[in-house]
């Protein structure tokens, strides 16, 4: 078995050497496809982190009436803390709210000089548990608490959350569709290359059948050749993407991290690279198998 595998690898390597131009064109095409795919994966992964980070930071702000008694506010706070949906509740007094505003307006707090009274209401800042952090979950929670007499208004960024999630959903569908099309394209390229090689070597295949070679023995070098094309294409794509990231686009990603408050960002790491290489090998194998059925028709 080992000797047969050695023969097949040797034959595949010889074929690559003999058809260097054809293999080069195929590998370059696969590389370009994978560059697009890897770029899209990185964007999708990082946007997914952004989404999760924003959702994790999502708060429900309950604005309290100015004339609400302190004991009623405290009772409300206690009841909220005990609710299953709630992770934590923080009370922000009118004075603290004004202080926070002054801090955020640093350098421009002259705007507040003319104020004779504090217009800001006290509020309860509610963090929800992860299981409720969906537009539907948040809305259900809000509907539960809105009837309280102390509450003047509730804000939870419903509009932007829905829009962002819808945008992300569209992006995901686009990503999967694009990924699917790219894979089909890659399969097509590899399949056609192997078909061409089988056609070029049809006399040799006939002779191999004459001396008793099985279909598997004949097919295996072609499969190995296609897998090598897939792996090399994926590898060059990884190297290109890594180089581009190192040369300058890394700073772009890092600013993306800052402005969108994305938390940690995902760049090319070992697991992702390994999956990409594995995908290259699988695409190569699938592409070759799709085109090798004609070998069975080549009877000696």
């Amino acid at each position, binding site marked *: 078995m080992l*000797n047969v595998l050695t023969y097949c690898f040797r034959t595949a390597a010889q074929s690559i050497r*003999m058809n260097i131009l054809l293999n080069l064109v195929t590998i370059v095409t696969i590389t370009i496809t994978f560059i697009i795919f890897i770029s899209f994966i990185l964007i999708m992964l990082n946007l997914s982190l952004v989404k999760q980070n924003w959702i994790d930071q999502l708060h429900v702000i309950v604005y309290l009436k100015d004339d609400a008694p302190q004991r009623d506010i405290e009772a409300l706070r206690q009841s909220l803390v005990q609710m299953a949906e709630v992770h934590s509740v923080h009370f922000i007094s009118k004075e603290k709210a004004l202080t926070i505003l002054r801090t955020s307006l640093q350098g421009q707090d002259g705007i507040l000089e003319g104020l004779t009274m504090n217009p800001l209401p006290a509020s309860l800042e509610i963090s929800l548990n992860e299981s409720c952090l969906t537009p539907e979950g948040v809305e259900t929670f809000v509907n539960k608490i809105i009837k309280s007499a102390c509450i003047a208004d509730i804000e939870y960024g419903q509009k932007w959350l829905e829009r962002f999630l819808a945008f992300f959903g569209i992006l995901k569908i686009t990503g999967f569709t694009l990924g699917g099309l790219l894979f089909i394209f890659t399969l097509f390229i590899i399949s056609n290359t192997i078909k061409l090689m089988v056609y070029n070597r049809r006399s040799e295949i*006939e002779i191999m059948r*004459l*001396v*008793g070679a099985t279909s598997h023995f004949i097919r295996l070098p072609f499969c190995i050749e296609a897998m090598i094309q897939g792996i090399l294409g994926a590898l060059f794509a990884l190297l290109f993407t890594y180089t581009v990231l190192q040369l300058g686009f890394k700073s772009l990603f890092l600013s993306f991290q800052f402005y969108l408050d994305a938390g940690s960002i995902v760049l090319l790491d070992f697991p992702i690279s390994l999956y990409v290489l594995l995908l290259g090998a699988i695409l190569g194998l699938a592409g070759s198998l799709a085109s090798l059925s004609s070998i069975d028709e080549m009877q000696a």
Partner: protein
Amino acid sequence: MIEFHNVSKFYDNSIAALTDITLKINKGDFVFITGQSGAGKTTILKLIFSSEKATKGELIVNGLNITRIKSSAIPYFRRQLGVVFQDFKLIPRKTVFQNVALALEILGNRNKVIKKKVWQVLKWVGLLQKKDAFPPQLSGGEQQRVAIARAIINNPIILLADEPTGNLDAALALDIMKLFRAINARGTTIVIATHNSSIAESFSDTVVSIERGQIKGQPSERYSF
């Protein structure tokens, strides 16, 4: 060794390539199948080789009924046979050594074993000095010797040859026939299809004449040269 029992072969358009062939070839026989072009000589070899399947009748080769053989079993059956063709059927991009070694490589033999056997057989056919040459660099007679070397390297029980001297001149044809004679002397059953009846008469123990897909008379036994 080879038994044809009322074998017929029809192609799609109902043209009969062979009709009701009954023939027995024993182990160690050296048999010529003669006839004009289109008589059915090659079809007989193709049936033995399992490149075609008989439409009617049964064909037994070395105890195996190959009219019922599964497609997946054919490669393993063919490893017991050696085949030589008029057009040599060598792989031009492989050296003489590699062409002959192919029959051993598909069996998964180790490189050491392959090298030893290929050297032995190339020496036997007189082509060891050309082991690194490519087929287009060889003469017709040399290419046919390479094809014969590949055919016998696995010590086949049966060697089939379809017009092996068709592309060769008389002198070279004689050399090739002597080689076949030597292979037969080692115990291999040989079946050669040829339209050259004079060669058959010079070399054969048994001559089977085919005309329009049928055996003419009884296979004759001739004094072998």
